[in-house]
């Protein structure tokens, strides 16, 4: 319902170039975009930190190591928190939860969303009406509201936040894929595939879907950032990760009461989120212009 005009505009006939290794034109275009490449490196660095986790941090992120509320110093780069834990170690380990949340919730949103969009777009008719109306109703919710509804139903935990944020993004994928499929299924090669007797499922998966992947990849990259923002916001509100988890949103909430005396507890986790989300947005936009500058994906 949120702007049928805009939703049709998403359906730009995007036929993604087949990947031909590093010489594929979109890879070359992407590599020329310095901001996007730098952002990709930032994201990779965060992934390495998350994978190594407790092995690279200077102190145990869940144990008291010194007096509480010590300002940043050479020993504790980001200071210590209310319980005397090292904020720097907690921020590094916190990347595990946020990145995991980004990947899981995007997967949980993309898989059913792509599937529903594919059916709605390809089958049309009654299928399309039912799926599109339901997606419209879900899109009528700002995604944080939709996530709140799911949290209410499932209870407060970081796993449920991942599910909630995932469900909240299903309609965006469905709408995007439906648009691409509507234009792709008109193309002569799809008709040819049908004429030679392929079954509808095979056509949908082998011929239509593979050519609709570019906007899905772009949306997913942007959504990882969005999911991390919404997820950490829910944790900040007390609806997601619970203490003593080193989650970035929760850490900001814990430092809120002592903001005046110990600003470092709340500020550093937020800076970490900022670097991840800016990087996701720049990589997403870089991919979009590398695939097709006219592509419209609203992240």
């Amino acid at each position, binding site marked *: *319902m*949120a*702007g*049928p*005009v*805009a939703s049709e505009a998403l359906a730009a006939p995007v036929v993604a170039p087949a990947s031909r290794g590093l010489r594929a034109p979109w890879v070359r275009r992407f590599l020329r975009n310095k901001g996007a490449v730098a952002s990709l490196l930032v994201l990779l660095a965060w992934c390495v930190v998350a994978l190594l986790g407790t092995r690279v941090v200077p102190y145990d992120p869940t144990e008291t190591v010194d007096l509480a509320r010590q300002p940043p110093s050479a020993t504790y780069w980001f200071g210590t928190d209310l319980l005397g834990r090292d904020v720097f170690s907690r921020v590094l380990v916190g990347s595990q939860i946020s990145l995991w949340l980004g990947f899981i919730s995007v997967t949980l949103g993309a898989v059913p969303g792509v599937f529903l969009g594919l059916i709605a777009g390809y089958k049309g008719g009654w299928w399309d009406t039912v799926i599109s*109306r*339901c997606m*419209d*109703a*879900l899109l*009528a*919710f*700002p*995604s*944080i*509201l939709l996530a*709140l*509804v*799911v*949290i*209410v*139903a*499932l209870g*407060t935990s970081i796993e449920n936040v991942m599910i909630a944020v995932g469900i909240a993004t299903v309609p965006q994928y469905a709408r995007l894929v439906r648009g691409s499929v509507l234009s792709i299924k008109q193309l002569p090669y799809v008709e040819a595939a049908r004429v030679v007797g392929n079954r509808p499922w095979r056509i949908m998966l082998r011929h239509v879907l593979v050519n609709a992947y570019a906007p899905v990849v772009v949306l997913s990259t942007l959504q990882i*950032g969005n999911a991390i*923002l919404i997820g*950490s*916001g829910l944790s*900040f*509100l*007390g*609806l997601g990760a619970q203490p003593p988890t080193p989650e970035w*949103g929760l850490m*900001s*909430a814990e*430092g*809120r009461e002592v*903001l*005046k005396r110990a*600003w470092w507890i*709340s*500020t550093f*986790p*937020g800076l970490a*989120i*900022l670097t991840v*989300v*800016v990087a996701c*947005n*720049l990589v997403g936009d870089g991919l979009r212009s590398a695939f097709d500058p006219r592509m419209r994906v609203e992240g």
Partner: protein
Amino acid sequence: MGRYILSRVLQLLPVLWLITLIVFMIMHVLPGDPAELMLAGAEGGAITPERLRELHQEMGLDDPLVVQYLRFLGHAMIGDLGQSIRFRMPVTELILDRFASTLELAVFGLLVALLIGVPLGMLAALRQNTAIDTAAMGIAYVSASMPIYWLGLVSILIFSFILGWFPPAGGDGWQTLVLPAVTLGLVSSGLVARLIRSSMVEVLAEDYIRTSRAKGLPERLVLWRHGLKNALIPVVTMVGLQFGGMLAGAVVTETVFSRPGVGRLVVSAILAKDYPLVQGCIIFLATVYLTVNLAVDVAYAWLDPRIRYTV
């Protein structure tokens, strides 16, 4: 035009109905006895079989779900969203008491978003592919990527604690609105700036811009009358979406600044497991969001008559 508005309103109704259905089902179908949850949450864990039975009766939980839903829908249509367990008050009353505060926040947040976003986007478009463009878009990216709660905390830290310009939270008067509105608006301003830039770049390449330059119109008129006016058309749709996003973003902003609004109400209701209140708030906010978007679509059709024939 009248027919267009009517058809859009008629399209709205099934969506509204679906929303009530989805929210109601989620609150009722999932495992867990709402009465029990409410007793545990609201009455400090004293769950006696008698009290449970009483509450079941009171809430009509023994009726079939369909009957419960129809009763809820009937009441909702006349503006009755049920009773809050925690406050022992009508949900509608609780929401309306706080809605003015949320609306005020969203309106001023939107104003901030436009006041920062439009000039920033214009500047980037006019200085396309220069260092100014890069800097302006860099600001836009960063402000759109900040967690709202974090921006709120940082602004309290800087403007209340260090500079002492505004109160950190609570209180009365316009001073208390400044930091929340800027926090909420700044995040959206990045999106507005990016949209204005791309739309302005597109418009500036149009023939009519070249024509108005060629006929000797002052650059100021070319940019404002012919450029910005046309570039703003796609922004109108976004303003509606942003406004809805702000009503929702208020959930976080109101908590950070301890403002008594609907957003904070819904969060406290979730934490207290006050399900009728949660249900009412969410249906209310979704309805407001839909209505705003309807109004924006109508305004859009009025600004750009081509739309009316394509929907």
